[in-house]
């Protein structure tokens, strides 16, 4: 029995240590961010903050929530995420359900959809299209172009396929209509699949930053991720709305940290729910016989 062998016990011990350390590297950067956001300017600038706040205070958060650029962007992100997820889910659920059935022309339709995974017009043609449709500087530029995702649709299609056909036949004999079967049987039974895909789409919208920068010429129209990009990466401090007197006592870095942390919070909050489903969803999508 290998479990009892000395060599395996030593391996096992180091394996535990190694994997726990790896897991910690995934958590510590976030803790560092959180600690910075609650620390004072002197502590942050002096690089004294590691994973625990020094001179605990909540001024960065007060400042962040008083910054109308930040809260405005946050509102745009919330609207875009809700609207975008609803539209996307509608489009991919309807098509995914239809394509889980056998009908004439199905394969041709399937190829039309799958081809979009293999080839695309690219950045400039998409930009020209969105501009010429008059979507620039509207929320629709963030919501419509990516609404249909072939990969997500295939995931849902596979979920629908796993539901036994006998169920549908029984409901049909009981007098259920086509859409009744779709609505009352298939959708409720595919809830894990719908949740996986829905949460992926939500996270995608919440994290999406490039389309905001591309399609919004006015920075007050930026969704949160795009707004954050200008602060974190382009380092445009004026977006933080610090007055000179405030800059004297507050650290830019702790406000940055607070802003990054707030924008990440929704992800961290939905993550436990997400995680319950996505392992199954991913495996189902990837492993097929």
């Amino acid at each position, binding site marked *: 029995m290998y479990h009892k062998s000395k060599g395996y016990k030593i391996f096992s011990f180091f394996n535990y240590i190694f994997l726990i350390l790896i897991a910690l590297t995934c958590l510590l950067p976030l803790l560092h961010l959180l600690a910075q956001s609650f620390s004072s300017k002197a502590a942050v600038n002096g690089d004294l903050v590691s994973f625990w706040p020094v001179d605990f205070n909540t001024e960065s958060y007060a400042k962040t929530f008083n910054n109308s650029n930040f809260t405005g962007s946050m509102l745009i992100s919330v609207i875009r995420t809700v609207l975008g997820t609803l539209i996307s889910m509608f489009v991919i659920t309807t098509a995914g359900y239809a394509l889980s059935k056998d*009908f004439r022309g199905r394969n041709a339709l399937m190829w039309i959809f799958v081809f979009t995974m293999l080839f695309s017009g690219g950045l400039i043609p998409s930009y020209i299209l969105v501009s010429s449709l008059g979507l620039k500087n509207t929320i629709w530029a963030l919501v419509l172009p990516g609404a249909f995702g072939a990969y997500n649709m295939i995931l849902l299609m596979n979920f629908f396929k796993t539901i036994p056909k006998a169920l549908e036949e029984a409901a049909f004999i009981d007098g259920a209509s086509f859409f009744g079967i*779709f609505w009352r049987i298939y959708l409720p039974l595919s809830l894990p699949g719908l949740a996986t895909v829905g949460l992926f789409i939500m996270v995608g919208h919440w994290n999406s930053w490039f389309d905001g920068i591309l399609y919004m010429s006015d920075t007050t129209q930026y969704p949160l991720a795009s707004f954050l990009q200008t602060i974190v990466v382009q380092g445009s401090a004026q977006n933080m709305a610090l007055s000179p007197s405030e800059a004297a006592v507050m650290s830019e870095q702790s406000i940055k940290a607070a802003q990054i942390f707030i924008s990440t919070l929704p992800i961290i909050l939905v993550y436990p729910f997400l995680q319950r489903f996505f392992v199954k969803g991913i495996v189902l999508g990837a492993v097929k016989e």
Partner: protein
Amino acid sequence: MKTDDVKRNRKNPWNKEVKKNWPLYVLCIPALVFVLIFAYGPMVGLVIAFQDYKPWLGMMHSTWIGLDNFARIFQQEEATQAIINTLIIAVIKIIVGVIVPIAMAILLSELRNVGVKKSIQTLVYLPHFLSWVTVAGIMIDILGLDGGINHFLANVFGTKPIFFLGDPGLFRPTVIISDLWKNFGFGMIVYLATITGIDPSYYEAAEIDGATRRQQTWHVTLPTMLPMIIVISTLSLGSILDAGFDQIFNLYNPLVYSTGDIIDTYVYRASLLNGQYGFGTAVGLFKSGISFILIIISYRIAYKVANYKIF
């Protein structure tokens, strides 16, 4: 009566099909509309790759210049450099992105304590869901000259501060390691599921034959994972020209263009920032075309070797 039906169906099989399955066709319409506008629409716009495109003239009135834009890709040193950088970064990302998740999945499957195993899993999946803007924000802070990593190195090894994001020689390793950090947990999921699905009697049989744990991993675990490994590695061939726009764009700066600029970031700068729309589109089309061929080839290989189908 029956033969009549058959005859009519033979004449126009669509009639009966549409009558019977009309809801299925209706359900496909929304997706079809979106795909035709937002996926196939831009493909029409690809014509500007063959034009000296001027926004104020539009696609209809800009002058046609044939393949000049494509020829320029290989004359422009920056463009060829971006292609080379893309290949190097993407290939290394693919290689480590296949090997590390496999190794981690095998190590993780050895843990007997379910609670510890689950907690580790939860934590290593997490970075995948953070946006590159967030991760870049953290990295710019901790990798800076007076950031946490340099602080640590100075205290422990007494080294001089290292400029990770501004040194052309260090930029690629930084990009590859941070990508690995963000995504290895997610890449691990499928392998872990495969290992969990292995029939325990294989291991029991191997043990009766006197196999050590290492031999069991080598002769049972890895061979069982092989089809999945082949599928994932061949499919990743299709992304050989995708070095990760979100990541590079948020981490790079002019100091590291020589080693860090990739096709997608180059297209962004050349076209949207410098107004060379036709040229940028040509570079993009060059990339999409090659990717397309590679994806088709890799799907074929995956189908032949491991019987994998997309749908």
